[in-house]
C-alpha cells in the first residue's frame, strides 16, 4: 500500500493537480460521451414514435 491516509492519497505527493487534472478530465469526457449517446438514442426512439403518430 502506497498511502498512509486518504488525504495523502489525494495529495499525490504534491502532484495532485497533474494526476487529478488528467484523470478528472478523462472521466469528464467519457461521462459526457455516454450522456450524449444515451440522449441521442432516446430522442431517436421517441422522435420515431412521434413521426409515426403524426402520419
Amino acid at each position, binding site marked *: 500500500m*502506497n498511502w498512509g491516509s486518504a488525504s495523502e492519497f489525494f495529495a499525490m505527493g504534491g502532484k495532485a493537480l497533474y*494526476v487529478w487534472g488528467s484523470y478528472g478530465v*478523462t472521466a469528464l469526457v467519457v461521462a459526457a460521451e455516454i450522456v450524449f449517446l444515451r440522449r441521442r438514442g432516446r430522442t431517436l*426512439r421517441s422522435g420515431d414514435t412521434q413521426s*409515426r403518430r403524426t402520419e
Partner: protein
Amino acid sequence: MIHWFKYSSPQTFYPLAGKVAPWFGAISVVLAVVGLYISFFMAPTDFQQGESYRVIFIHVPAAWMSMFIYMVMAGWAAMGLVFNTRLSAMMAQALAPTGAMMTFIALWTGAFWGRPTWGTWWVWDARLTSELILLFLYLGFMALTAAIDDVRRADRAGAMLALVGVVNVPIIYFSVKWWNTLHQGSSVSITRAPSMAAIMFTGMIVMVFAFWMYCIAVALTRVRHIILEREQHAQWVQELKEAE
C-alpha cells in the same frame, strides 16, 4: 460455418450490436476497476518522477486507441469504397467521435504529464505535433461528412479523407525513432521485454483493454443510432418500431 456477409446488412447487424454492446461495456467497467486499483494502490511511486507518472495509466491506452481507432476507421472507409456496403461507412462514422475523444485525452494527459516531468505543457516536437494532426484529421472527417447532404457522397468524401490521413499514423508511431523528440521512445515493444516494472506494465495493459472494450461498446451503440437514422424509412425499421 458462420455467414459473415449476413452481418454486413444493417438489418441483421442492428440487433446483434444491441445484444453485445452492453457486454463490452460491462467488461470495460470491470477492467477499469481492476486497472485503476493496480494503478493507484499496487504500483509503487516512481523513483524518478514521483506520483505524476500515474498519468501514463490513461495516457498510453488513450494514445494507442487514438491510432488504432483511426486504422480501423480507415479500414471500414476503404471497405465502403471498394464493396459499396452501407454498413462500412456507418462503422467509420461511428468510430470517428470516439477516436477524436481518445486523441484529445492523449494530448490532454500528455500535457499534464509533461508539465511536472519536462517543465512544459507543450512543445512542437514530432510526436506531439503529429498527434495533434490526428485530432484535426478526426475533426475534419466529422465536419466533412456532416457538411455534405447526400449521404453517399458524404461517405465517399469522408473515406477519401480518412485514407489520405492514414499516412499520419506511422508518422506518429515512428516519430520518436525518426526524429530527436522530447517525447521518450516506447517503453513497450513486441520484440523486447518492457522497460518498466512488471506491476506498472500490468496496470497499463489492463487499462489498455478497459479502453479498448469501452471503445467497442460506444462505437456499437453509436452505429445503432446511425443505422436507425439512415434506414428510418426502411420496412424493417418500421416493423421494429411497431414491435416495440
